[in-house]
């Protein structure tokens, strides 16, 4: 059944024209195919682009097939537009909070939503240049636009053209999942795929889902002036993260004025007198919220439909995607997969990392495993919530003795000077050692800060060594040094202290 309300389409302005010229030029014809490609990549999102570029740089003959736009979710409807919009929303939040910084809030603070969205499109268009057909062609990559269907174990057709390949990598990504809630489809809802096409701010917005996407956009739209309600069916936001991180986020939402509904299910949606009535149930409490726009952010489904994977002998499951072994090889030894279509962690950085591994294993007989990589992730709320490595509960379940060194951000000079002292750095080590097992950072710039811990994990650097690393002062990343120093102080046993004291006397 079609939705009553069609989702907004992208405004056709100069930015959009520029973007399309880069990522899907309309007047372009597909190239004449080579007899056979050493690597054929299906899907030109972050994983597909990375795979094609790595292989081409290594001298392989590469074809890249894209159904829609180069750049995939990240560029067009994911990380980049959302972070662009979040930055504007943060600016408005800071302006309202100007007194905290000893400044006057602007007297008549009007949100120019259309301008904010125009900026999103402009920056998206600008960044689209990095993923342009022109640049890829210059690298020697044959770029094909059209629907891809496998026609055999080593062939694929794009529109009516057959491409032969030695090896292939499927990187078709994933799309937003719209939950099966009675009335939701009829009433119409937005997803991350089309919310960045809005040109008018919804007066009242309901966000279904308290995962990273739901949390980020709920806060952004609230700060841009939408009366926002967020509904999460679990007791806390970001269920994977630790309790304190999720709790700090709940408090931040309360301060922003987001109507928070935890432990709450959306059971039905109706349209009456032009507004959407959303029925909610929390335990035994029933309520209805009237809104103008609904955004769903409850996970993503792998894009496997239409590829006729059966013809290539590639196993997959609807929803979770293509089945791969630890080396990212599918059930067809010629075909590998990378990115959201096959990995558990659907992040751009993971997609790119998995693509590089897939290329190594497919073309160069590599035996690299994604499981050996250290994967950080970050939710770009304010404050941001970033994590890498083990969680405490995982360590406990695995019987690994674990200890956490915690530095609240109010202990960090630069966080205090910037009035950004909500949050913490928690570094988990194996009890009795300085070996880092994982970390969670909640801070305004946690995403930047987590990289230091990721490096330490990859390089096997412990807290002892980190304590010796001079950090630029004052920076918020100093919190990591402070945690390392806290570890160092625990090593000062009374006996050691006495020896040090004697040394002083000498």
């Amino acid at each position, binding site marked *: 059944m079609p939705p009553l309300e069609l989702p907004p389409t992208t405004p056709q302005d100069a930015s959009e024209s520029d973007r399309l010229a880069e990522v899907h030029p309309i007047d372009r014809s597909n190239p004449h195919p080579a007899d056979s490609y050493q690597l054929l990549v299906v899907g030109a999102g972050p994983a597909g682009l990375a795979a094609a570029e790595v292989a081409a740089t290594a001298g392989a003959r590469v074809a890249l097939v894209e159904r829609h736009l180069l750049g995939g979710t990240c560029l067009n409807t994911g990380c980049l537009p959302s972070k662009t919009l979040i930055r504007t929303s943060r600016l408005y939040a800071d302006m309202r909070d100007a007194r905290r910084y000893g400044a006057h809030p602007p007297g008549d603070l009007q949100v120019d939503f259309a301008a904010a969205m125009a900026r999103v499109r402009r920056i998206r268009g600008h960044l689209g240049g990095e993923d342009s057909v022109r640049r890829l062609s210059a690298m020697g990559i044959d770029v094909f636009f059209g629907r891809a269907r496998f026609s055999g174990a080593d062939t694929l057709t794009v529109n009516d053209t057959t491409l032969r390949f030695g090896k292939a990598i499927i990187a078709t990504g994933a799309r937003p999942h719209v939950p099966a809630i009675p009335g939701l489809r009829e009433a119409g809802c937005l997803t991350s795929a089309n919310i960045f096409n809005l040109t008018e701010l919804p007066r009242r917005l309901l966000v279904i889902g308290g995962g990273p996407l739901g949390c980020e956009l709920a806060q952004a739209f609230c700060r841009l002036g939408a009366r926002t309600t967020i509904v999460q069916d679990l007791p806390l936001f970001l269920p994977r993260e630790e309790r*304190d991180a999720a709790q700090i986020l709940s408090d931040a939402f309360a301060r922003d004025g987001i109507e928070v509904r935890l432990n709450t299910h959306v059971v039905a949606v109706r349209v009456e007198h032009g507004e959407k009535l959303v029925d909610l149930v929390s335990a035994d409490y029933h309520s209805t919220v009237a809104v103008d726009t609904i955004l769903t952010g409850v996970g993503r489904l792998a894009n496997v439909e239409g590829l006729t994977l059966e013809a290539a002998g590639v196993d997959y499951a609807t929803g979770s995607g293509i089945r791969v072994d630890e080396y990212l090889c599918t059930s067809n030894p010629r075909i590998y997969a990378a990115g959201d279509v096959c990995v558990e962690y659907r992040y751009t950085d993971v997609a790119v990392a998995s693509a590089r591994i897939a290329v190594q294993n497919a073309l160069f007989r590599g035996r690299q495993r994604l499981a050996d990589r250290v994967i950080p992730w970050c939710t770009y709320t304010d404050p941001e919530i970033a994590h890498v490595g083990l969680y405490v*509960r995982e360590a406990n379940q695995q019987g690994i003795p674990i200890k956490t060194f*915690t530095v609240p951000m109010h202990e960090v000079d630069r966080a205090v000077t910037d009035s950004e002292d909500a949050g913490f750095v928690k570094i988990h080590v194996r009890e009795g050692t300085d070996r880092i097992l994982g970390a969670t950072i909640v801070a305004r710039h946690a995403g930047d800060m987590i990289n230091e811990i990721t490096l330490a994990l990859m390089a096997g650097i412990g807290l002892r060594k980190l304590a010796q690393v001079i950090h630029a002062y004052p920076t918020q990343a100093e919190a990591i040094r402070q945690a390392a120093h806290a570890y160092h102080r625990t090593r000062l046993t009374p006996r050691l202290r006495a020896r040090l004291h004697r040394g002083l006397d000498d």
Partner: protein
Amino acid sequence: MTLSAADAMSPLLSLPDDVLLDRLQRGAFDYFTHNANTANGLVPDTSRENSPVSIAVVGFALSAYPVAVERGWMSRVDAVQRSLAALRFFRDSDQSGTPTATGFKGFYFHFLDIHSGARVWQSELSMIDTALLIAGVLTAARYFDAATADEVELRELADFLYRRVDWCWSQGGCETIRQGWKPECGFLHYGWEGYSEATLLYALALGSPTHPITGDCYRGWTATYQWENLYDHDHLYAGPLFVHHFSHAWIDFRGIRDSFMREKCSDYFENSRRATLIQREYALRNPHEFAGYGELGWGLSACDGPSDEQAGLTNESRRLFGYAARGVPYGPDDGTLSPSSVLASLPFTPELALQSMRSMLQRYPEMLADDRLSSSLNPSLKDAAGRAWVSAGHYGLDQGIVLMMIENHRNGRIWQLMRGCRYLSDGLRGAGFDGGWLRQAALQGVR
């Protein structure tokens, strides 16, 4: 000429520590006698008009009566009658689990009507609050050990009520105990993770001869613990101070350890001491620059508080959180302090707790009325006369924990009494606790 609040406080603060504590303990105790319904032994949640009964407050009341008898504030006969009234009420209460019943499966709804005992506010069947009630029931049974007909009946009732609780059912088929249940929707999932006040609940649930949970259940819970180094103190983290107090009102955790604490070379008593020191450290840092915080001004815990919530309005920015579990170091922190949590820290950090209480009473005499501490104060919110915002009336939980922790500080009476409670010691052993008095109790064969 009328005395100012500060002037009125001067004589109190000039008292020696022991006398001051006696006054505060007596003031706390009077909450129960002034507010209880003697007909059914039920005690309201707060002293405010039309307050319902909190079953946890009844548990504190049942634990308070033995203390009052020992201190000469109440006759043994009176204490037995009050206790018996409550126990008989719970024995005879409606256990059908219907929306207006009193309980189900031996558990009780959190809030009850003070006259009929029926469930009110559509409250949940509360596992933790039932545990606090049952702890009080068992305290009464331990103390009233005479061979009189009333005291024999009291002990039999206590045994009946404890054995009736179906702790195993409260797991709801899951690894850990659920936090609540409602007839309208079944088990509730609040997603509690990490250390909390539930050690007492798990110990009682493990010690049951009739419907015990398994030791795996306790280990499933402790698998969510976080051992953290914060402000240079290693401790098992929980933000609100009451978490570090409530189980300790009944259980003497000195020298006994479960596998978690054995691994960390600590115990839960020492952990509560460090939690107090961390509170002080936080208040010294006072990141949000609230008034009244400092070395002698701390106590972030679950308590009442000022609210900026406006009825009927949604999407309003919140700065004040009303009744909330405030904690350190991550908050929520809106400048509200719980004085009872300071006094309840006496057993762990006696000097710091007493000095802080004296300092806070000196600075904010308005937080004490009838020798009873208010639920909370917020010195950042002052009235025209310069007085701190103070929570109206009194909360039973605050009075209960103050009374019991002063007693434990003074002579360890409740701890001593409950060391002899076989159900509790069996439960602690089932959770893997060992050492100290628990080993001695095993050798001596407590009843």
